């Protein structure tokens, strides 16, 4: 499967571009406190079913960008549209995942997963969502762990549970803030493959912030390379490796060439 340049969509082999889900244009963020320009004129579109990563040196504003996209922090200027509606605050159709699993230790795994429903719609709605939560847990291979407390889960299992919590409200977009960077490398590789599978099965549109080049390349349809001070998009790189991706692809010349290209961009910025 090779893709034409103007068509970044990953789903299907059709030539018509997929519907845009997330549209950002002219986005800037200046922190009033220290007049730091975190983001400067960022424009970005996520299409349905697409997996996009953002990579860049620390201070390039990638976390700020994710917070704005999640409605957790307001932009200074620009347009942020999700499903045709401006993002003005946290929304139930935005799923988010952090570096830490942040499961509440006094709730069982399944209670943690329905927590977003419980917070927004109350206990009765949460109870009604239990079966769906169980299906999600089965999807990530945690079906048998629904009623244990998070203290008994390993780091990788806890992150898989937090994937379920993110998916329970059927969000239009998944925002992933370095979700596996606290895990050991072997677990991390495994979780990345799991993430790919889950995204495929749920046809998710995902946006990943990471500082791992290999992780970004193996998962993404497109990588947004950012530069710091001010945070700007340097280049968008299409990743036309075939899907499904496998860990063996890391050893292919094509993978190497993509990594080398992005590393070159980042090194050039560092040298400036």
């Amino acid at each position, binding site marked *: 499967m090779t893709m034409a340049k103007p068509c970044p969509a990953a789903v299907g082999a059709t030539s018509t571009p997929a519907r845009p889900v997330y549209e950002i244009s002219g986005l800037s963020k200046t922190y009033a406190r220290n007049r730091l320009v975190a983001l400067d004129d960022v424009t970005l579109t996520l299409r349905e079913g697409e997996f996009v990563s953002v990579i860049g040196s620390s201070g390039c504003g990638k976390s700020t960008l994710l917070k704005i996209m*999640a409605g957790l922090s307001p932009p200074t200027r620009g347009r942020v549209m999700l499903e045709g509606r401006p993002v003005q605050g946290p929304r139930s159709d935005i799923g988010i995942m952090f570096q830490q*699993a942040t499961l*509440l*230790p*006094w709730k069982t795994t399944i209670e943690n997963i329905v927590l977003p429903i419980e*917070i927004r719609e109350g206990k009765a709605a949460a109870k009604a969502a239990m079966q769906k939560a169980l299906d999600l847990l089965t999807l990530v291979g945690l079906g048998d762990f629904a009623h244990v*407390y998070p*203290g008994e*889960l390993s*780091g990788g299992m806890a992150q898989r549970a937090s994937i379920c919590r993110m998916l329970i409200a059927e969000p239009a977009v998944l925002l992933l803030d370095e979700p596996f960077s606290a895990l050991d490398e072997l677990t991390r590789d495994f979780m990345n493959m799991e993430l790919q599978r889950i995204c495929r099965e749920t046809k998710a549109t995902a946006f990943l912030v990471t500082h791992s080049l290999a992780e970004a390349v193996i998962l993404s349809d497109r990588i947004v390379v950012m530069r710091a001070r001010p945070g700007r998009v340097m280049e968008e790189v299409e990743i036309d490796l075939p899907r499904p991706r496998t860990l063996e692809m890391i050893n292919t010349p094509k993978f190497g060439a993509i990594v080398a290209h992005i590393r070159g961009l980042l090194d050039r910025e560092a040298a400036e």
Partner: protein
Amino acid sequence: MTDATQHIDAGEGDTVWVEEVSLIDSMPRWLAMGLLFVVAVGIWDLVTRMGWVSPIILPSPGETLADLIFVGRNLFTGGYMLEALWTTTQTVFWAFLIALGIGFLLGVLVGETKFGERAVLPYLVAIDTMPKVAFAPLFIAWLGFGISSKVALAAFIATFPIVVSTAAGLYAASESERMLFKAMGATRMQTLLRLKLPIGLPYMFTGLKIAAVGVMAGAITGEFLGGGKGFGALIRQSASQMDTPRVFALILYLSLLGLLLYFTVVWAQRRIVFWNKEERAGGLG
């Protein structure tokens, strides 16, 4: 090869390393505690038997035991000492309850609101640094020689650790946990009740344990200074009559009350904060 390991040659080229376990590690806890007790009482007995210390300063273990039995009999037969212990128990109970209520509310005010943190906290810190026992005469002047002045002093002493630990507990939620609740659209009240308070519970219980010790000290100090019918007054009377074995016996029974309160808190903590038994692995990293 460290000092604690022993090298045994098992033949056939294999090497077996056996870790040496020290004697104190290998014995059960009750035995270790019992041994120390026997040794300590032995030394105590020797010191009094040889007449190195006046019996007014340090009574012999035998005399103390006799008084322990005497006081114990009085307590279990519902004598005047039981009445005194009941008075002190009530003082401690009410003081602890009041300290818990006021301390928790002030702690939430300080930990949750900017007003509390910026305006109220400095005053609390200032009062906390004062020797709180010095307020005893004031409480007696305001509330009289009855139980209420003792309750006030004990509650006053026990409130501060609860305020501080409650506030600290409310700050304990991590950045990701706060972000998660924000992303879920949780209201401030939901975030407080469903995230910050439960996360803060282990901290609050630490404060409660300190308060349990403080409330005992406050109640007894109050009874020393303000008279009344409590156990503290009994101890003071016996001390002024140079009845040292009686003082020893009374203190031992009093410590049971303190232990009861302390372990009630520990028990409650185990029941309520059931998830904090071990490392919060996986869950909260």
